[in-house]
């Protein structure tokens, strides 16, 4: 069988995403409103990252932000679901989890799933 050289997986001209470390989960406890979880990496540069959170503690991992249709009256109060955002500095990945409000407010423990990768960019 002829080998298709364009399928060679290693090309030294380019960088590759290699996982920074083997740890990829962090437990947290929902707060009254927001809770921040810091994950130290200490790489001294902004790496590539991906984060998912088990927002309802039911085994479903949400990536990105949970979006819902707001269809409530102001008089009835807000039942906003849980949500999260992330940001990255040169030494820390921060995941800020919002517990939600009203009937959708979460409590107890759940899990953040994340990956920090090396060799980001060209």
């Amino acid at each position, binding site marked *: *069988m002829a*080998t*298709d050289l*364009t*399928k*060679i*997986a*290693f*090309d030294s001209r*380019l*960088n*590759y*995403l290699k996982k920074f470390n083997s740890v990829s989960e962090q437990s947290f406890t929902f707060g009254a409103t*927001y809770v*921040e979880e810091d994950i130290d990496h200490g790489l001294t540069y*902004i790496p*590539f990252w991906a984060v998912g959170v088990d927002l309802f503690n039911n085994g479903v991992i949400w990536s*990105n*932000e949970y979006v819902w249709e707001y269809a409530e009256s102001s008089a009835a109060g807000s039942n906003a679901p849980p949500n999260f*955002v*992330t*940001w*990255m*500095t*040169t030494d820390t990945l*921060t995941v*800020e989890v919002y517990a939600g409000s009203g009937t959708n407010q979460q409590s107890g423990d759940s899990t953040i799933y994340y990956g920090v990768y090396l*060799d*980001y*960019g*060209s």
Partner: protein
Amino acid sequence: MAVDLTKLVFHSNYPAFKNNREYTGTLSITGSTSGGTNTRTFDIALDTEPDLLDVIFNGNSNSPDARPDDAWFKNGEIWVPTNNAGGGNPSRWRLTYEVEGTTLTVTATYIQQFVTGETLTSTDFSYKIVDYSVF
């Protein structure tokens, strides 16, 4: 024994993502706003049509947003000061992006409520785009 090249550790018949090209730059939100939805769009030219992109931003934060100013984010807002003395808060612009062909368009969106037109203090934010080519 003949060597089966398809068994090489660094060989795959399937495409693979590789960090092919990086784009960085600074954009600016300026001008004034009016009641309702305000947007600013910025077109960024890419060398080739991408297979997969990662886009991150850096820009001003503000209380109660806990993100520090030196942090980068994939989804979030930047805060742009205004001349609105009554509200006391800067305007909050959500950043999104879309790709069509070789053009990536960044859109900043601000929903203005309860106040009339505002004059913005020109505010910069940065972007970094990494193009993952499929070979």
